[in-house]
């Protein structure tokens, strides 16, 4: 049953191995640049879903956490040139603390207030970074990449493998939460918070934990941006696009199962990458909007829900 995790871990190991093999054999860097973005969205969508999908608290501030991650990395590079791994860990810690703090302030309230509060946090943090000259302020900051570490032959490939590892960690965490008592508690909160509390679920604690974990993963996903772009600037690091995508991907994929955000991110992320190099017009902004509306209206359980329905249909015919 659900507790059987072998398939998942074998799958994860295979994905990681494939990523490494790809990095070793494929010369063409484009695929890594493009795939990095897609995998980064897997992390963001999975992180968003922990609070948004399981507990039903909509975070509009993915970009705040993401941007904080990127700027923590910038700070550490400028300050003492810490390596990428430590940047990610530090970003995760700060993101987690931020999630905890925002949660503490607003998670006691109805869900929509939390959403509005995350919008406010995004604006406040962006303003703070704009006013912080050490990390470049409004003009942004350019970063020189350190030489690439063995055994990689290009920095992008290293970032890609790094993102894949991060994605596996994120999905593993989400999967653990989903299948354990924590996930059940979060779902109870989403379905009916008062009833959850009265059946012994420590709602505030669980929400805080989910918010902190989700924030930590989002910030971790933002940390490698500094190296990926080798240039960070507040308007793009705190861009609303990240918030919208992180929300759209799980909804399109399906919020009830951990695979939903992964499918959503791989699908929407890949579509975005493909559209970027095929249709060069407003239409690529429209893709997200239209897909969002179509799925929300036509397939509320996302792609995962469609699959489940399909399976039930087939089963029904067999009987």
């Amino acid at each position, binding site marked *: 049953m659900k507790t059987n995790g072998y398939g998942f871990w074998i799958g994860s190991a295979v994905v990681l191995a494939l990523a490494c093999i790809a990095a070793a054999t494929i010369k063409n860097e484009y695929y890594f640049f493009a795939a990095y973005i897609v995998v980064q969205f897997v992390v963001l969508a999975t992180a968003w879903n922990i609070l*948004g999908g399981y507990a*039903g608290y*909509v975070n509009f501030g993915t970009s705040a956490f993401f941007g904080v991650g990127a700027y923590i990395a910038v700070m550490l590079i400028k300050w003492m040139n810490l390596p990428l791994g430590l940047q990610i860990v530090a970003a995760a810690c700060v993101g987690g603390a931020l999630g905890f703090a925002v949660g503490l*302030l*607003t998670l*006691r*309230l109805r*869900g*929509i*207030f939390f*959403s*509005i*509060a995350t*919008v*406010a*946090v*995004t*604006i*406040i943090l962006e*303003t*703070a970074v*704009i*006013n912080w000259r050490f990390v470049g302020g409004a003009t942004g900051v350019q970063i020189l990449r350190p030489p690439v570490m063995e055994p990689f032959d290009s920095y992008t490939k290293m970032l890609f493998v790094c993102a894949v590892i991060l994605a596996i960690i994120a999905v593993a965490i989400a999967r653990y939460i989903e299948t354990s008592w924590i996930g059940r508690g979060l779902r109870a909160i*989403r*379905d009916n918070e008062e009833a959850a509390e009265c059946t012994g679920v420590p709602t505030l604690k669980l929400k805080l934990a989910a918010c902190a974990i989700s924030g930590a993963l989002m910030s971790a996903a933002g940390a490698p941006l500094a190296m990926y772009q080798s240039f960070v600037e507040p308007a793009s690091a705190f861009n*609303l696009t990240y918030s*919208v995508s992180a*929300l*759209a991907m799980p*909804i399109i994929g399906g*919020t009830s199962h951990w695979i939903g955000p992964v499918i959503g991110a791989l699908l929407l992320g890949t579509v975005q990458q493909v559209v970027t190099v095929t249709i060069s017009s*407003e*239409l690529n*902004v*429209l893709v*997200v*909007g*239209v*897909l*969002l*509306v179509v799925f*929300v*209206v036509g397939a*509320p359980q996302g792609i995962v829900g469609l699959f489940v329905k399909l399976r039930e249909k087939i089963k029904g015919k067999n009987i």
Partner: protein
Amino acid sequence: MDLLLDAIVLGLLVGCFYAAVSVGLSVAFGLLDVPHIAHPAFLVLGAYGTYMLNRMGWDPILAGVALMPAFMLLGIAVYRFYYETFERRGSDAGLRGLAFFFGVVFIVEVGLVMVFGVDQRLVEAPYIGKSLAVGDMRLPLRLLVAFAMALVLTIGLSLYLSKTFTGRAIKAVAQDETALRLMGANPVRIKQWAFGIATAVTGLAGALLIIVGPVEPTIDRVYIGRTFCVVVLAGLGSMSGTLVAGIILGISESIVLTLLGASWAPAVSFGLLLVMLGIRPQGLFGR
């Protein structure tokens, strides 16, 4: 001291403008509980409608008023659709409703870019570009017009909600839907009407948006935070609260700008919102 007084007066004017662009949301979100994140996009839609009529020689305010019936219909259609697809199905209306309206935001933005291009648009009117001299102070006429319209809108809406039968029904539907149903009224129809009114008001507020400053298709994003800030600060669904909250936001931005520096203004006003959520989540005038 002069500058401070000036800051307060201008903050008051801009604050009323903030209230005017938020009243529609105050009805849609505050009273009807619809997570109408596309409200600012509708605002921009109104601004572009005004721009079009203005090019044909219409006065922007008149154009805004002329847009109201069309926006009313748009609002009714949007609410009907929202109700059929989300509210009626029950669970998770919040999350999916939000996602839906987010989709609408993108569709409106892209639609505007395709029709009007990405450039900024302005309108022309006798009261734009002139100012009223009061002592040493000069008050831009366009802000005074916006100020007056904001008062008319909020007070009108507030009177409508408290004095007319339908208005009271709208307020009742916000408080106790089942009770209203028992009384023989159809809450869906009332909500639909209310959302229509909210959208019509938003259309007119869109005219104010383009009177006060230039508009481009994605300017709605700036107003997502601001309008929700005003509505929450006010206390959901309170019209007079919306006016006061708008003024508080306007004046605090203006004072911060004068005393601390403009670059911190957004952080201060949204910090205000966070603090408010932390200590008095029902808002200033909340139930």
